[in-house]
């Protein structure tokens, strides 16, 4: 995959990626308290990936390209594939991955609402913003930044504030960020802005599922509000006990991911190809088949 090397995080130095990531306390994903959910002022958007149902068709990957006009050479979501075993006892695992919209921090593993990509952003914490909850109508104050966390759990990028420094690309232990060659960093136009999955914020704010979910024929991607005990994601989390640490990626990083995996065969860890330092090869969808 040498060919891919030239596009990775490329133009910048990888700064301190491993240093931040290494701190992972053994904290599990944030516990899902029903009591907390019932009193929540805002939704908490989350995705459940049902590994039994992913048929590796790449419809999600391409739907995302179209929905978000994602340039060639990078992705906002991909399906990783892995074959294990020896003939004829062979398995193939499809693993859809996406920004985990983490709640926690790599620094202390606490559910402090400041995940590593946000904490490394030089523009965070920035201006004070107000979020109006669609579920309760309550106004919730929060801090903006070039990368920031909205009170409904979305980790978003403010292009106007971005200086294109690339710290968040390095800081994300999952390596799901890239530079958008089409969009300049608003606060430093000679650089390109950082870019990643927004859970299709422009759709969910308009009452629509994210594009990858809408087109998923296996219903392997399920999206919804974890603060609504009746939402499909809440039901799945309860039914499959997804709040246990083994059902998210890299639980040891203490980032409290909000993307959960239904993995009855316990193959998540085997299947997941982690990022290599300074590269984003793991986040390219390329079938050598």
């Amino acid at each position, binding site marked *: 995959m040498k060919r891919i090397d030239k596009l990775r995080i490329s133009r910048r130095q990888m700064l301190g990626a491993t240093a931040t990531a290494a701190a992972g306390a053994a904290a599990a994903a944030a516990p899902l308290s029903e009591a907390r959910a019932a009193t929540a002022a805002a939704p908490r958007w989350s995705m459940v990936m049902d590994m039994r149902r992913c048929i590796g*068709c790449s419809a999600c990957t391409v739907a995302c390209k179209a929905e978000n006009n994602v340039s060639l050479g990078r992705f906002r979501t991909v399906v990783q594939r892995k074959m294990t075993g020896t*003939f004829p006892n062979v398995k*193939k695992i499809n693993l859809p991955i996406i920004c985990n919209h983490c709640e926690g921090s790599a620094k202390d593993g606490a559910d402090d609402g400041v995940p590593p990509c946000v904490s490394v952003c030089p523009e965070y914490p920035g201006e004070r913003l107000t979020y109006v909850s669609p*579920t309760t109508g309550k106004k919730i104050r929060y801090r903006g930044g070039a990368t920031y966390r909205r009170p409904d759990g979305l980790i978003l990028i403010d292009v106007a504030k971005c200086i294109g420094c690339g710290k968040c690309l390095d800081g994300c232990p999952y390596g799901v960020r890239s530079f958008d060659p089409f969009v300049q960093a608003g606060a430093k136009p000679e650089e390109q802005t950082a870019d990643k999955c927004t859970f299709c914020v422009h759709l969910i704010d*308009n*009452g*629509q599922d994210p594009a990858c979910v809408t087109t998923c024929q*296996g*219903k392997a991607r399920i999206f*919804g509000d974890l603060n609504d005990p009746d939402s499909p994601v809440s039901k799945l989390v309860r039914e499959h006990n997804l709040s246990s640490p083994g059902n998210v990626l890299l639980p040891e990083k203490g980032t409290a991911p909000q993307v959960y995996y239904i993995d009855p065969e316990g193959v998540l860890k085997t299947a997941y190809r982690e990022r290599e330092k300074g590269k984003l090869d793991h986040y390219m969808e390329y079938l050598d088949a």
Partner: protein
Amino acid sequence: MTALNRRGFMKLASASGAVLAAGAADIRPALAGTIKLSQSGRSFSPTTGKERQAIPTACWQCVTRDSMIGYVEDGRVVKLDGHPESIRTRGVICAKGQAGINTVYFPDRILYPLRRVGARGEHKWKRISWDEALDEIAGRMKPLLDAGTPEKLMYHYGRNKASQSKVNGDFLGAFGTKTIGNHTSICEGGKWTAQELMWGGHYDNWDFDNTDFVLVFGSNTLNTHTNHIPVAQRLIDAHVGRGVPMYVFDVRLTDTAAHADEWIPINVGKDGLVALAMCNVIMSEGRYKRDLFKFMKVTADRNASVDEKIAAVKAGVAAFTPEMAEKDSMVPADKIRELARAFARAKSGVVVSYRGTIAHQDGADQERAMMLLAAITNNVNSPGGRCQGVGAGWKSPKSKAGQKTGGKVKALNINDGFPGQVAYPTHHVNHQVLKMIKDGRAGRPEVYIWSCYNPVYVNGEVEENKAIMKDESLMPFTVSINIVYDESSALADIILPDVTYLERWDWEDMVSPTQVAEYYFRQPLIKPLGESRDTGDIWVGLAQRLGIKLAWSSKEDFVRQSCNMTPGVKEAGGFEYMKKRGIWHDKNAKPDYMGFMSKIPASALKKDGVIFDQATGVYWNWKKAKAQSADEAMKVGYQNTPGAYKAYVGQEIDGEVYRGFKPDKVNKSGFLEFYSELLKAKGIPAFPTFTPIAEHTAMAPDELHLTTYKVAVHTHSRTSHCKWLSEIYHDNPGWMNPKTAAERGLVDGDRIRVRSKHGEITTHVKVTEGIIPGIIAISYHVGREFSGRYGSGKADPIPGTMADDPDFKNKWWDRHGVHPNVLIANAPDRMTGQQRWMDEVVRVEKA
């Protein structure tokens, strides 16, 4: 709960172009603090939040043809999604469908008529006007009419369906030619013909919604089926949602095999043998179900009792013991027994089979073995079983045929293979067309027009195809209707810029997975780019020049009239309704399970012209069959009267007359025929059997089987210019088992040379545990000589294409794969004409 459900689609159409501030319109405080997101139906710009215009239409990337909603912003198609009201797709489309936008805007798209200025195949072109192009083509067609040889106009299509097929056929009929080629024999023609010999029709749907057991042979159903989106999601629902057991026989670990309870590796071409062995277990252990035997024909005696039939099937499969099958197939005898018993025990079950099973010598017999397995377990046209496909039945306007030839419509006999080559070419033998043109004995087309087809690339023996098409003495005048310069357009004299499917009118009819027909519709999302023009409108231009009167004035008019004359759609509001909704089905319609058991009323048998055929037990109408007289018809008999199947009324069984399994393409009886008089008449075994494949029995120890396959993100030949698809899949290494690789001193990634009798390619090897030893498998989508810069790595050598795509500078791949068809003979199966893709043998060595 506040349901922000946007499935009420009328709302969408009326919201076209409305500007909504992001978040303003739809997210409201909810009483219970919950939000229900809608699956699809509306689209918003990620940069401005503006709501986009929503237009119902239909996909055409592949034959599945899902109904869709297209979204348009500032006159540009920006997003495609499934139509949320579709009973077929349930609002979902695949990766190819999602990349449909790329077919409109890829940088190498042909936008203007072109005339070659150098020698044919020299890639020198100039832009001409539509008038110049149509004048020249009409000027070539007119002499054919004057000479009374309209059949020397040949039209050859790859993917034409529904209204597109009808509109083309209508014009060509009006002109007087039936020399119309297709591509079915390189796809699944053999499966279809096999089915026509058994149950009459030619498409099977597997009732996954109701099934209790799934057996898959030679089909990557979850990724690449011809009705992909409708069936894949239902198979996953059945398997994961309802825990339905699923076992997959395949030479490779496909995604379907990977999801199964078990992948059962099987040797190439042995699917039918294993199915017969399963039949053997079920029959010999008395595990069959008697229900269907009454309607089956399994011996020469149509009056055989059920017990006699059971005995005959038992005897017919007696030789195929699990041990015998194990020896050839590598499937353990115990596994065959276990699965046969489980399948027979299940309340219902489906037997899936596809190209891996049928693209062989006598592949149709393998399909017959599959059907036999389904029949003896009572899983034919039953809930949860293997059901005949149901699609929409549209009406359409018809022009007068043979307008300049005294009503005559003629054909060159070049579509069905060489004389004596194929017994029942009911879907033609298109991969022999170029060979037959070269041979010349059955005549040659003076004018050869093709669209949505790439004869050079999609058939075997690519180099020969190229040489024939390049030879002006064999093919004097060639016209390609296309959106992209490809291996065949390169050999045209004139290229006409086709519209893409997102700029076109059509009605659509693909099979429904629920056995309830869905009527759906395609309409332009934008005006055709450049000077591109629908083929239907090209015919209008030619008809005007030739003085031919068509019953429709444009493709849009053809579709309009069709909508306004088709029962159901018409009452719903016809064309205007379809423009708004894009889709219609009869809410009261129910699946026609076990329809073959319906009795034919006595009145139908007393109708004028209806006679009884003693030999077959078929009631048929000699007048409808255009026989000369009742006496003549009785004397010649149903089976030997050409086209008698069109006059079928019912099948007599035990003194009653049933609808039975109605014939559709051949003069079979109304039984589900496993004993085929038609095959017997051609010297082919009447009852399903297994005949070793000639190429395989003659293999040298160092030779390997070559198999080809599809991946989820490409069609065979029409998507490599789509950047989002080629980014994911652009290279096709040869899959090889570690044992096979080691025998050749190969390690993963080595460059290899693959040689057959027909050609040679160089690629690299992917050493993988996910394939059986003794074969090499290479996919067939890539290795494009021309397919625009995303598909072939180089820009098209033509003037007047699209403007550059700013994303092109981000293209990162420089491998574009190889084409395995170079290695494969254009060899039809003797029973059906199916191209025998999977019978080729090759030698592989380090390059």
